C-alpha cells in the first residue's frame, strides 16, 4: 500500500459531507455534481442560477487549492489525450443515463439508503476496478 492518507481523506470527506448537508438543509437540493453540471448545460428558468453559483464555487475552491495546497493538483497519473477523451465521453454520457455520479449516488444517495444509489455505486466501483485492472495489469499502465 502506497501513500495511505486516511486522516486527510477523512477530513476532506467530512468537508464534502458538510457542503452537501448545507445544500440539503438550507436549499433543499442534492449536491450531485453531474446533475448540477447537466442542468447548467440545458438551462431551465429558475433552476439554473443556483447550479451556476455552485459550479463557480467549485472553481473558486479550485483556485484556492492552487494557491494554498498545490499538491492537490499533483495528478500523478495522466492518461493519453485519446484515453482522456474516451473517458470524458463515458463519464458524461454514463452519469446522465444513470442519473448520477460519485457525489449524487455515492455520497448523497448512499447516505439516504436509496436502493438505486447503492446499486449504482456498487456498479461504478466494480466497472472502475475492472478498467483499472485491465489498464494497470493487462496493458501495464500504458494508455
Amino acid at each position, binding site marked *: *500500500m502506497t*501513500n495511505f*492518507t486516511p486522516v*486527510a*481523506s*477523512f477530513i*476532506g*470527506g*467530512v*468537508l*464534502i*459531507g*458538510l457542503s*452537501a448537508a448545507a*445544500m*440539503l438543509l*438550507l*436549499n*433543499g*437540493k*442534492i*449536491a450531485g*455534481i453531474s446533475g448540477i453540471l*447537466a442542468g447548467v448545460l440545458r438551462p431551465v428558468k429558475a433552476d439554473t442560477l443556483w447550479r451556476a*453559483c455552485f459550479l463557480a*464555487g467549485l*472553481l473558486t*475552491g479550485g*483556485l*484556492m*487549492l*492552487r494557491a494554498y495546497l498545490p499538491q*492537490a*493538483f499533483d*495528478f*500523478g*497519473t495522466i*492518461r493519453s*489525450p485519446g*484515453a*482522456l477523451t474516451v473517458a*470524458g*465521453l*463515458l*463519464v458524461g*454520457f*454514463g452519469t*446522465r443515463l*444513470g*442519473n448520477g455520479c460519485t*457525489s449524487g*449516488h455515492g*455520497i448523497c*444517495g448512499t447516505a439516504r439508503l436509496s436502493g*438505486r444509489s447503492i*446499486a449504482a455505486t456498487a456498479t461504478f466501483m466494480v*466497472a472502475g*476496478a475492472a478498467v483499472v*485492472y485491465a489498464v*494497470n495489469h493487462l496493458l501495464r499502465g500504458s494508455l
Partner: protein
Amino acid sequence: MKALLVSFFSGIVFALGLGISGMTRPIKVIGFLDFTGKWDASLAFVMLGAIAVYSIAYRLVRGRRAPLLGERFLIPERMDIDRNLIAGAAMFGAGWGLAGFCPGPAITSLASGAAPVALFVIAMVAGIYLHGAFTRLAEIRMRPVSAAAQIAADS
C-alpha cells in the same frame, strides 16, 4: 439571494474537501480502484466521512416540510433499479477508472490550468450533450410507432 450564496460557498467547501481528500489526484483514485495491485484504501475514508455527516443531515430534514431557505426539497423519489441506471453507472465507472477523474474533481481541477483536465471536461460535456441528443432521437423514433399503434387501436 441567500440561497445562491449558500450554493457558492458550498461549492467552495466541496472543492476544498475534494482537494484535501486526494480525490483531485487520479493517482489516488486509480490506486483506490486497483484492488489487485498496490491498493490505496484512502478514498474509502472520504466516503466514510462524507456519508457520516450527510446521514445526520438527512435525518435532520426528514419530517421537515421545507428547507430553511427554500420552498421545497428536491430529493429523488425513484425506487426502481432499471437497465439505464446500471448501464449508465457501468459507463461512468469505466470512464472514472480510465481517467481517474469524476465530475466534481474534474471541474475543480480546471483551476489548475492543466490542458489534459480541460480535454477531459470538454469530452464530458460532449458526453452529456450526446446523451441529450440520443434521448431526443429515441423519442422521435418512438412517435411514429405509437401513432401507428393508436391508428391500429382506433380501427
